[in-house]
């Protein structure tokens, strides 16, 4: 039994090491993508006069439909000048590859000066996007994951 326990331990250790390495590689790839896209946006910094979001979705994305799009609609209501460029990641694979889209929703956040702030992978609350677009700190006391009510300008 000891021999089998040691084999099991070795397999689990190998799996954990592979997972750790995989995560490191993904993080490095994301950082490279961000650096590459930031270099492009710096080169054409005056190309955009309005803040914009590059939003990747698919027709089967439930989180996009149920959660992300209402949050984007709430954000647009507060920032009418905001440009939201919606793309189907499956229909536009080249663009999706450029942004290293691995899951949806994925949102690239560009400020008014054209600077790429970050790329979010997964649902992002409207309040987080707003603070990034405006360059203001996000002050939330509890419930940081929520969207709509945090757009209340009185808060």
């Amino acid at each position: 039994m000891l021999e089998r326990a040691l084999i099991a331990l070795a397999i689990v250790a190998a799996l954990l090491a592979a997972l750790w390495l995989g995560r490191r590689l993904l993080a490095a790839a994301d950082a490279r993508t961000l650096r590459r896209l930031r270099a492009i946006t710096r080169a054409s910094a005056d190309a955009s006069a309005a803040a914009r979001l590059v939003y990747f979705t698919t027709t089967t994305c439930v989180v996009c439909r149920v959660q992300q799009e209402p949050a984007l609609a709430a954000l647009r209501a507060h920032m009418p000048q905001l440009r939201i460029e919606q793309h189907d990641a499956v229909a536009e694979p080249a663009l999706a590859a450029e942004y290293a889209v691995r899951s949806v929703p994925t949102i690239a956040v560009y400020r008014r000066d054209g600077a790429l702030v970050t790329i979010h992978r997964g649902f992002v609350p409207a309040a987080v996007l707003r603070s990034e677009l405006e360059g203001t700190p996000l002050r939330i006391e509890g419930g940081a994951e929520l969207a709509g009510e945090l757009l209340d300008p009185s808060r």
Partner: protein
Amino acid sequence: MLTLLTASVVNRARVAQQPSPQPAYRVDRSVLRTQQACICASVLLGFVLGTELGRWFVLATGFVLSLGVLHPALALYKQLYWRALRPAGLLKPDVHVEDPMPHLFAQGMGGAVSLLAALALFLDATVLGWALAWLVFALALVNLLVQFCTGCFIYYQLDRVGLLPRAIASTRGRAA
């Protein structure tokens, strides 16, 4: 490069507490984590105890996962969470807005592979049997630790190319 796109497979969506127009799309990830931990424990224990006894653990895992697809009451690992861990306050609900169907599909896949593994072990194909059992273990561990659901990924790929039956496709319940 990345044409293998998935909808919310890398599960990084955050907790949704805002009202949702589609309340059916809710998944308590604590249930999933409990189930994944049980799968890992079962396979690990089965392997350590040896094939003679361990194959029963693999068979039990296969049955629990497969029957759980048919009815939640038969999903014993999930029942462990609903009836013991959550009431005892050991685990808290972690509810997210997402489609539960891909997770159910993944569970069915895990059940099928576990049953195949058990069959191989009972037929003395030990290496194949444990290889399949460790595959189930590995995928459950990946889901548990990094929230990447391989079964969900396969579900979305099949859905994308229209290979899923209408009853379980992501477009189920919508007008044709």
